[in-house]
């Protein structure tokens, strides 16, 4: 399991290529990789969003993400998990979160990737503040998946 809070912009596909070649499961052992990338949109709840500031709770963030990954229902089916999450100021098009799961079979990979994302959205201590054209607002609550 590799969990990282990123202070700077990251490129999910480059990170996946590097991680897989350096830390991925042995070639031939995995048959399925499911990934999810969450990216900043330039709209939310009907308003244009100029930028976003992501605050988090250093220390608790990493603990919660580890707990989420360790708590995946079919933990035995997983060979490797990568979670990256951005903090700081983010602009539209910037990746915010990357979850990638390697498994022997596809059912476990799909299910774990989804489960990790939903748990991350509901319990990892990150908060978004949106900068609109005419002011700022905290995002009140994530929508269920």
């Amino acid at each position, binding site marked *: 399991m590799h969990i990282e809070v990123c202070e700077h912009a990251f490129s999910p596909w480059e990170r996946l290529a590097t991680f897989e070649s350096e830390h991925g499961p042995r070639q031939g052992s995995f048959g399925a990789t499911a990934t999810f990338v*969450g990216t900043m949109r330039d709209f939310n709840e009907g308003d244009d969003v100029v930028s976003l500031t*992501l*605050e*988090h*709770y250093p*220390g*608790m963030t990493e*603990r*919660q993400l580890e707990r989420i990954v360790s708590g995946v229902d079919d933990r035995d089916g997983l060979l490797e998990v990568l979670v990256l*999450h951005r903090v700081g100021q983010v602009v539209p098009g910037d990746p*915010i*979160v990357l979850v990638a799961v390697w498994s022997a079979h596809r059912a476990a990979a799909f299910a774990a990737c989804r489960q990790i*994302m939903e748990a*991350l*959205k*509901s*319990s*990892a*201590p*990150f*908060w*978004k*503040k949106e900068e609109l054209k005419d002011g700022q607002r*905290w*995002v*009140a*609550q*994530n929508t269920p998946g």
Partner: protein
Amino acid sequence: MPIRVRYFASLRERIGRAEDSLDAQPDLTVAEVWATLQPDRPLDSNTLAALNQEYVEYDRRVSDGDEVAFFPPVTGG
């Protein structure tokens, strides 16, 4: 060692600071930590509480040296 109390996001902004410090008392709960430090703000039931970086209910007991945190619903991902 005192209890370290931290606030995040909109709660931090409303309170106007990121943390407080509080001396422990016997059988002090998370809810009482809040009430002692924020006597004029009832604890909103949406507010999440963490003790030593793990989620807890408001009735959890707090001890010397603990870190208590209060924050609004999380919105990452």
